[in-house]
């Protein structure tokens, strides 16, 4: 939980510094917000690593097919990075850029899940052939 409190403290400090420096120079406020986000993302990595380790344990325990979980892990990673980037762009005043990053993230998530759709489609074709 130490990382969590550190992240909260970093976010609050970045917000306060951003508000104060924003009155003097808006660019500085944006830079502080970006730094805060990066610090929180780095701290988040610590938790995500544990979650991924646990998922690997589950994978070993259940003798699971790695590709299916791999798709979801990649989707989660792409989602987190694109959301973070989109929010930074929006905060910097480039909302259109942020929107494009989000759209890009959605498209990449769908692209990543194509093997899952293909497996489902093959399975449905097999079932329809049997009926």
């Amino acid at each position, binding site marked *: 939980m130490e990382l969590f409190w550190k992240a909260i403290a970093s976010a609050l400090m970045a917000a306060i510094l951003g508000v104060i420096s924003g009155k003097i120079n808006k660019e500085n406020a944006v830079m502080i917000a970006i730094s805060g986000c990066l610090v929180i993302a780095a701290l988040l990595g610590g938790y995500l690593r544990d*979650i991924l380790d*646990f*998922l690997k344990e*589950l*994978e070993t*325990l*259940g*003798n*699971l*097919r790695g590709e*299916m*979980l791999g*798709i*979801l*892990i990649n*989707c*989660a990673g792409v*989602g*987190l990075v*694109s*959301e973070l980037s*989109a929010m930074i762009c929006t905060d910097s005043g480039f909302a259109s850029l942020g929107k494009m990053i*989000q*759209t890009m*993230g*959605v498209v990449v*998530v*769908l692209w*990543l*899940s194509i093997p*899952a*759709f293909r*497996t*489902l489609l093959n*399975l*449905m074709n*097999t*079932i329809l052939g*049997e*009926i």
Partner: protein
Amino acid sequence: MNLFSEDVIIKSSFGITSTGMNIVAPKLQEYGNLQVPEAETFGEGLMMIVNDLIPLLRPDLYEAAKVSIAIVAASMLISIFHSFSDGMKSAANIAGAATIASSLLLSANSLIRLAAQTIESISEYGKLLLPVMTAALAAQGGVGKSAALYAGTTVFGNILSSLLSSVLLPVVYMFLALAGASCATGEDMLSKFRDLLKKLASWILKMILTVFTAYMGITGVISGTTDAAALKVTKATISSFVPVVGGIMSDASEAVLLSAAMAKNAAGIYGIFAVLVLFLEPFLKIGCHYMVLKLTAATCSVFGVKSITDLVSDFSSAMGLLLAMTAAACILQLISTVSFLKGVA
């Protein structure tokens, strides 16, 4: 093992002496002890079948547990998507639904095929057992009842069998497809269609079993009474119209009828066990998956991913429908066999 022994010789009951034709028979008692475990009561026999089945369920439990772990792991990851914006959340939900549906559909497909095979086996076995029971009941004097029961069982059995294979099993596939689509898109209309299909399947099964049970009950009462009256009249006729030996013949006919009843009961009890053996293994296998999926749905709900919880619940409902279908096919055979066993009052 030497099953055949020269010292066990059966003399022909058709008057041929042992010198003319020696039949070397198997040591039935010894062979029986080796092949068939001893069961004194119906309950003991049933318990022996169940005990033999439990080791067969281990691979299925392992497979179900594997699927369950995969779904729980996927749910953990999908719960991360819920912090994303709407567009990303929708895309991630679609990816999650496709991943989980493909894992679940793989095991569901094999179970649906197992249920279809079981229903077919029970139906085919019924086609062998019921003529035997009909003949035995007719020999016991229940000519009207046996004909009515056989006609009813055959008609309802065929209706149920063809409905299951041509309507209800495709309905289960459609139900699963709608459940997957509803989970991916979150459309209310799809979930309503899905519920409609589930209700339709349950209603058809309930209706067929209710009508069948009512038919069996009414037929049993009406034709059973008629046959009993006809038997009494026949006995009285033999007793009074045949001079001198009429009474003896009437008593002898009672012994013949009792022998026919014994043969019918033996065939009936064996038939019940055989139907149970055909039914119990697939039923317990599907039941295992049903229970594990229920447990998985409860675990997934902890992560707060409602769409995935609903998807897993829908797959467990599909397993429930499969259980109901196999049970309906089995109950139909059991009810008809028991109706034949009741015999003539």
